[in-house]
């Protein structure tokens, strides 16, 4: 099976700090891949590099066999093919929820306003936010904001969804509603690469789990294997922190 998104030998340093030290990772179409690892292991940086939100120092990124790490490709066009959701939602505070959701459709994809809003409203309806469509994001709870941010990311039918610790900033009781939405997206066949600390969720939803340690992929495999019988000592040590005593 040819991967939809494939990165090889990815390197990225911020000044003297090497964050990614030769990462190979791939995501097949309709596959859900969970990226786990300690804080600072490079999960966020990897997602940003893949989504062309950072320039890489070395390596190659292929999206549907196209080399998107080539500086000659039009970055805006590539970024429009990804959907990204961030830990702190990053909704636009000056726009209503609906305008947040339809901005890319209208501005980047040139969809007529009425059509974009119809689809935006349908999506918001699906995630139970239709009544907040005209509100500004600050009126919403954290969970609602993050669901709106997810809708914004999927409104343009991206080929790959990059989810960067999207529940880490939420109160525990709000985590469930966001994960439920991701579960639905996964069930619908979306291609998802998500950095997460929700191990139970990763185990349940992901097809494959990648353990990132010190800027390298230390181990990867199906959740049953990685969580059930990790090969590496570092993986076992990391996972042991999430086990409830």
């Amino acid at each position, binding site marked *: 099976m040819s991967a939809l998104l494939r990165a090889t030998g990815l390197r990225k340093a911020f000044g003297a700090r090497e964050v990614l030290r030769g990462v190979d990772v791939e995501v097949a179409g309709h596959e859900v891949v969970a990226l786990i690892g300690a804080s600072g292991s490079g999960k966020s940086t990897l997602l940003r590099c893949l989504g062309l939100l950072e320039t890489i120092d070395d390596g190659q990124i292929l999206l549907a066999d196209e080399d998107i790490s080539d500086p000659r490709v039009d970055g805006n*066009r590539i970024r429009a093919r990804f959907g990204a959701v961030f830990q702190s939602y*990053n909704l636009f505070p000056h726009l209503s929820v609906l305008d947040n959701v339809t*901005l890319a459709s209208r501005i980047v994809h040139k969809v007529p306003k009425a059509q974009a809003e119809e689809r935006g409203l349908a999506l918001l309806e699906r995630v139970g936010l239709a009544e907040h469509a005209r509100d*500004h994001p*600050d*009126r919403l709870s954290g969970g609602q904001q993050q669901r709106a941010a997810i809708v914004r990311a999927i409104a343009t039918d991206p080929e790959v969804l990059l989810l960067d610790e999207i529940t880490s900033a939420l109160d525990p009781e709000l985590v469930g509603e966001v994960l439920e939405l991701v579960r639905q997206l996964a069930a619908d066949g979306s291609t998802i690469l998500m950095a997460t600390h929700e191990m139970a969720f990763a185990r349940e939803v992901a097809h494959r789990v990648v353990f990132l340690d010190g800027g390298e992929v230390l181990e990867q495999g199906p959740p049953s294997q990685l969580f059930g019988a990790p090969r590496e000592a570092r993986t076992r040590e990391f996972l042991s922190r999430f086990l409830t005593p």
Partner: protein
Amino acid sequence: MTVHQPSELELDRRGYRRRRQRRSVLVAIGSTLAFALVVWLTVVNTPGWSDVQRAFFNPEIAWAALPKVWDGFLLNLQVMGLSVITVGLCALLIAVLRTLRGPVFFPLRVLAAAYTDLFRGIPFIIVLYLVGFGIPTIANARIPPVVLGVLAVTLTYSAYVSEVIRAGIEAVHPSQRLAARALGLGHGQTLRRVVLPQALRKMTPPLMNDFISMQKDVGLISILGAVDAVRAAQIFQGQTYNFTPYVVAGLLFVLLAIPTIRLTDWYTARLRAREQSGSLL
């Protein structure tokens, strides 16, 4: 749905608060009146007050000077109205030039930076002399003072305002830019749809400050020989040897500034209310 009936305890508390509030208002009125009386008596009994009043606050002269000063003031208003537009456009252009990336734009970036440095440093009155007397000399033509005034004000204030805009652009959190770029918006689209609208809210107060400052400096166009409020007052002062017309002109500028200041406060409060509901803390 039943309407909640406040308890006896709550009604008692509300009554107490109401009484306290009424008392506060009365105390404030009383203390204000007393204070005003003291100030009034002090001023009136100060030796030389009648001379000051006659020279600066002479009601008859004020009334007589008002029509002429008002006519001049209309010229100030004209220059100001036009300048608001030209300064806004030029400043936005300069600010955007300074945010452009890419080697092609290097000379434009440098030019914009040099321009802001130069025109923020140079005294406005020198710009006014250079523009007001220099340009008609070179052009060897009569140029209306309104045009010269607008040009001088625009040259100077574009530099200030562009720095305010640039600061506003930089104050928008990078995560906003990141989110916009992640959606596939280009540099210009991100600037126009995401960064500038947010920057505008952040920079309204300092922008209004510059605007008020500009309203005052428009009074300097009197040195171009244009009969504006200040010049009209000067002419009247020359005839009567009384300084009240200057006070009249000054009051007109103050009256112009006050609505601007109140409008700013109201506007920023409204934006804040719309974007952050709930707790003020």
